């Protein structure tokens, strides 16, 4: 599903965020990506969602080389990837409904056609009753659920989450992770970047570890032991 081949990323100014990263996440797999702050987790996710381009090496999704994706095609790639952020990235002056419906509207659905899917997505994350609320009226955990609903409303085959539990207490964090597990059960590949080692330890999923831009553990040796 996601394959990195000798990927390096050096930012302008000389900061090397990633160097020679190799790994492969299978379709339908759920994996954690961990490492200290500044280890390159966010950069790695940005390379998948084409917010950044690698300096060297190549990134493949479903066998497609992302180097061949032209800037005008980037939006279509992003429609295949559900993205979840620590700061939710919700539109604060729009209702929960409008926020979740946004990806569908972008794809050309009418509001009526989008309604059923939006309600279904909100039910899946357990906040169907908040459809007319504004994000400001919701708690941090609920806002994160809106972000997740928005990411899954188009049913993408791949979910990326950048510190989805960053601002949540352990109980809420576990609930969010359980949600991801549910999506994973129906075949969605999920890659979660987090530095919450406690959370990872309680779960038995593949964990990729970055340190200073290098992949020091791609999580496969552990499973072989």
């Amino acid at each position, binding site marked *: 599903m996601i394959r990195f081949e000798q990927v390096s990323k050096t930012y302008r100014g000389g900061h090397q965020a990633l160097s020679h990263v190799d790994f492969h996440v299978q379709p339908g797999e759920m994996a954690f990506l961990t490492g200290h702050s500044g280890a390159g987790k966010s950069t790695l996710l940005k390379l998948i969602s084409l917010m950044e381009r690698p300096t060297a090496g190549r990134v493949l999704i479903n066998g497609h080389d992302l180097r061949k994706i032209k800037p*005008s095609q980037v939006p*279509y790639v992003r429609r295949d990837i559900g993205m979840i952020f620590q700061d939710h990235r919700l539109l604060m002056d729009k209702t929960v409904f409008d926020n979740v419906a946004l990806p569908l509207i*972008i794809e*050309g659905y009418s509001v009526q056609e989008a309604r059923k899917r939006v309600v279904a997505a909100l039910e899946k994350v357990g906040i169907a009753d908040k459809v007319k609320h504004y994000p400001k009226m919701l708690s941090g955990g609920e806002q994160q659920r809106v972000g997740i609903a928005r990411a899954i409303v188009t*049913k993408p085959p791949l979910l990326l989450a950048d510190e989805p539990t960053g601002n949540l207490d352990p109980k809420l964090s576990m609930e969010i992770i359980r949600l991801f597990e549910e999506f994973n059960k129906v075949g*969605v590949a999920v890659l979660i970047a987090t530095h919450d080692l406690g959370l990872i330890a309680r779960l038995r999923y593949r964990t990729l570890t970055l340190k200073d831009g290098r992949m020091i553990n791609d999580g496969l040796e552990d499973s072989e032991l």
Partner: protein
Amino acid sequence: MSLLFRNRSIEKGASNRGRLPWWRRLIMVPVHHAQQAIASLGELWRNPFASFMTMAVLGLSLTLPSSLYVLVKNTSTIADNWQEASEVTLFLRKDLQQSEIDTLKTQTELSEGVESVRLIPKEQGLKEFKEQSGFGETLDYLSSNPLPDVLVVIPAESYRSPQRAEELLNRLEKQREVAYAKMDLEWLNRLQGILNLIEDILGALAVVLCLSVVLIVGNTIRLNILSKRDEIMVMKLVGATNAFIQRPFLYTGVWYGIIGGLVAWLATALLIWWVESAVVDLTELYETPFKLNGLTLGELLIIWAIAVGLGLAGSYLAVRRHIQSIEPE
């Protein structure tokens, strides 16, 4: 459209999503445009002050050239009328016999380029002068009539242009009986020159004003875009194309044009109304009934189209530069 997952619609599980049939998508295109147009109008309504300022600037910038245009148009019609009716006046020598005058009249009537000839005998001339000049009885004290006999020559259709009429004038003046001939074309030429100058200035002014309108609209839209930076980033993150993000801003520009065009109409109409009373007063002094021609429907529509075009151009300029440069971080 899925680039990475060609068979996404038939993949099992989570990827099993219903796609819209093509005809539904086709119908959705105009519906979407209408929705976004109305949505941008609503957006304007929410921030009426800033948008109204821009629309007013757009409208008032167009008012000046369109009012000047009305002025030039009306002056041209007046000039054209006078040009058409140009007549040659022949002042005859005073020592002529009545028979000589009649012969000359017949001769002139028969010569090339003359449509008709009217004789104003000196007695009639004096009578008319007495009535119109206001000297009245005073003229009775004159011992003899100082006025010459006059032949008024109306040139034929083909001799009415300034150059041909001038030819005719020269030819008629050469006759022995004619003291001198007169045709006041000089001032018409000057008027034409002035009109041409005003038209040139009008053109240059219109270009400069239109350019500034484009920049002003562009700047307003640019500020609009920057104030929605976060929203645009989020939209890009969930896969919106530049075209999709641009559309509402382009519609905003179109609305600026539509409403700015209305402002231009209104302001021009007001200005013409204001000037008209003064023009009527002036023409009454000359005893010529005159109606100031306003803008025709066609011209109003052209002004409207220009306004919409300028609004669209301004927003396109801003959108091109700024939507592309906002990338999610």
